[in-house]
């Protein structure tokens, strides 16, 4: 994955390309997506994440590339000198709109982030597009799996972005507890033989939760609060701290509501974690909660942020 922090990009060779009628340049080795972002052109993404190998399956980031028969995924296609790119042509708009409509028609997308919501609005997504006549519209309707005390899996919200599988595999955790099973519309994320996570190889690092863009994977605390209609982002604060459990020094962001820690994440751009944690950092804060009865956790080093899933 290209390291495109500012220091490194300045050392790289800049190559020229054109996008939406403008003459631009970006460091060689960039993907089209990075090149566009560096030049202030925003592109929607769903299956893409800086810290994971691009799989380019959602196709919401497609752009028109001169000389190419089909649209190309900007998140994995490498920039070449002289490329002519359109990011807002009728073809691109239609493809992005329909891809989002197809997703909403099959998957519960109610918990996607604000960015994605905004893109849906921008492209005029019609959520009822395929609800026509009596032939039932196929949706993913798997029941919520609550098979362990730490997090739930609600695959009716799964858009099959492959991120959790990558995070559990060679891209982060090397545990390989989950994989994609089945084929086509019937494909889904699963442990072997659909056994519970406890029976599987899962080590409950929660790294899959951290990368899930649709809220299909969720800490049980958050799931319960949401079910009780007591998940109140407006009353939440996020506290940055360093994980106390071992000497690695992972950054933690603790989401606090009503003086209790309700969720722990790590920033994706943190040089040690890249967003990953282990079971202790991710779920071990219950005991801090107990200690916190005496000393409120949000009294230290506080930054207020919006929660990723809202």
């Amino acid at each position, binding site marked *: 994955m290209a390291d495109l922090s500012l220091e490194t990009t300045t050392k790289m060779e800049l190559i020229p390309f054109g996008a939406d009628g403008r003459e631009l340049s970006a460091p060689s080795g960039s993907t089209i997506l990075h090149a566009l972002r560096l030049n202030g052109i925003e592109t929607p993404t769903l299956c893409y994440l800086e810290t994971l190998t691009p799989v380019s399956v959602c196709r919401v980031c497609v752009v028109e590339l001169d000389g190419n028969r*089909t649209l190309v995924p900007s998140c994995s296609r490498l920039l070449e000198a002289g490329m002519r790119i359109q990011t807002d042509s009728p073809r691109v708009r239609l493809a992005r709109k*329909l891809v989002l409509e197809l997703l909403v*028609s099959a998957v519960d997308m109610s918990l996607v982030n604000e960015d994605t919501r905004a893109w849906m609005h921008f492209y005029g997504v019609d959520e009822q597009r395929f609800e026509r006549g009596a*032939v039932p519209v196929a949706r993913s309707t798997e029941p919520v799996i609550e098979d362990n005390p730490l997090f739930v899996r609600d695959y009716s919200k799964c858009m099959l972005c492959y991120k959790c599988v990558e995070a559990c595999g060679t891209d982060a955790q090397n545990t390989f507890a989950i994989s994609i099973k*089945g084929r*086509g519309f*019937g494909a889904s994320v699963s442990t*072997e033989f659909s056994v519970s996570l406890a029976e599987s190889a899962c080590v409950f690092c929660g790294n899959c939760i951290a990368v899930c863009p649709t809220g299909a994977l969720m800490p049980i605390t958050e799931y319960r609060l949401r079910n009780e209609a007591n998940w109140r982002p407006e009353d939440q604060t996020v506290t940055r701290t360093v994980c106390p459990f071992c000497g690695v020094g992972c950054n933690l962001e603790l989401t606090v509501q009503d003086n209790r820690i309700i969720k722990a994440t790590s920033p994706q751009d943190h040089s040690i974690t890249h967003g990953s944690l282990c079971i202790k950092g991710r779920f071990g804060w219950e005991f801090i909660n107990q200690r916190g009865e005496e000393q409120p956790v949000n009294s230290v080093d506080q930054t207020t942020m919006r929660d990723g899933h809202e």
Partner: protein
Amino acid sequence: MDLKYTQASPTPDEKNAIDGFLREQGIPDSFATLSDAEMRMGTSSVADVRVARQYVLPGLHSIQSQFGCVTPGAINWLAMRLGQPAAEVYGTATFYSLFEVAEDAVATLHICDDIGCRAAGTVDPLLNGLAVAGYPEDTPCNGARWKRSPCLGLCAQSPAAYFTTPGNSAGTIAWLDLDNAVRPNTETAISLLQTGLINAAPRLLSIGLAGADPPRLSTLIKFTLNLNLYLEDGGFQALKRARTFTPIQLIDEIDKSGLTGRGGAGFPTGRKWRAVLAEKSPIRYLVCNADESEPGTFKDRTIIENNPYSLIEAMAIAGHACGAKKGWIYIRAEYPEAAARLRKALAEVRTAGLIGAAGAENEIGFDIELSVGAGAYICGEETALLNSIEGKRGEPRNKPPFPSVSGLFGKPTAVNNVETLINALWIVKHGADAYREVGTAQSPGTRLFSLSGSVVAPGVYEAPHGITLRQLIVTAGGLPQGKQLRCVLLGGAAGVFVGLEDLDTELSSEGARAGNVTLGSGVVMVFDTSTDMRAVLKRIAEFFRHESCGQCVPCRIGTVRQEEALKRILHTETPLQEEIELLNQLGSVMCDASICGLGQTASSAIQSGIHRAKLLKSEGNNG
């Protein structure tokens, strides 16, 4: 990497079977006990877990063929022995239609209900007959059941089925019409389900000629199942000659011939080989695509069943040209007879020293391995095929990089169709100039067309490029008495429907471009007015929904929405025009934004059926 497995353990029989299979592959029993570090260091020949993974599919096949199903215990043991995560092996097993991931064995009769058989008129009587006789689909009865299947490549011998039973290592082709004179197809199917016995010898399909005079490929692939006979006929002389040329000389000759791929995409073969040869890599591979799952295509099966040696010779030549020391043939599981003949032929040719260990006749030690699919049309897509050989789910890769740069196990790889390779063999034998003597400027040479549906003599026909559709149909005897032509599907489910006004289309790349059609894999499927074309369109939509790998959104969900729209049209629920507009938009986005050719062509036949052949317009008895 510490892998963890569930408690599910194999039965002693399963364990023995898996261990036996792995021993046959030369994998030491101690493999499972190697430490992680040892495995990564490559201490033993298969100790690289990425390489070990290629035994996953063959391993699953060996389990399923003995026990009739793949149990969790068996998956665990196979995964453990190969150092693979169980979740991934399970994910792979469940990708392929033919693996029965279950606790109990079941025999299955896979009856084709795809469009070629519909065009032949055999589907409805057979399936209705089974339902009436009390055999509903997918309902085991005494351990046997029947299921509908996509095209089995037997369209010219319809109705036919593929029968898998526990203990039958590769499954068998069941000719349901064999004793048609004595009893109806339905009864043959039922007796098969009841007894599990098939006593039908393999039936060969010979290759007809349609203006290919003198015959070309047909001569090369003359029926021979005996290496000595093939050698007496001049077999392997071309290979000997080719090995006296440099790879570049061979590629120049192929380039000069103008040969293009016969697998569907029509890419220039010389250019592909040159790209592979030019890669700076000590290892390159050649892969022969014998997956042949495009509905209506059966020419590759016919080639292999008639003469497996010619393919082996052609591959050895292509391997030399590309600088590949190793070749793979990926054949679909539904072709057990072709696979058996290939396996036997490979052994004979190896014994003769023409392939295999390096020797006088085979200086570089070129060898060929056979890989068998497991029921997935998508595995014909070249990068899905490579993933499948590697033991993964058959999901296509994003391109670039193309296989010529990063293919099998990340090495430069030439992927070629069976018929393409046979053409290359002909060119090495007779030269590029002779090759160009027939055909058209842009499509030199001949082509094997698979003719099926409503014609008197369906089968494979060799014809020079440029023959018209009409001539081809006439050569196959025209339509049966009393039948009236409705339309023709060119290129298969990924192809285009044409109507009566297109019968003079020339079948060549020039003609295809002018007529806005595709030759694809050479499918010519003839429909008469008695076929319910709406049901055919719906079956095509169902095909793509069923065969989508599921990776990308436009195809995974788009093919489902496309099929739903066609179902609504069939039930005339919503205004036709609105549905057609929806289909158009779905079609254009699937075509534009899907990862691979499956999604990109999933709407092609349906769109042409609606707009070009006007198949939704009331006509005949279709309402």
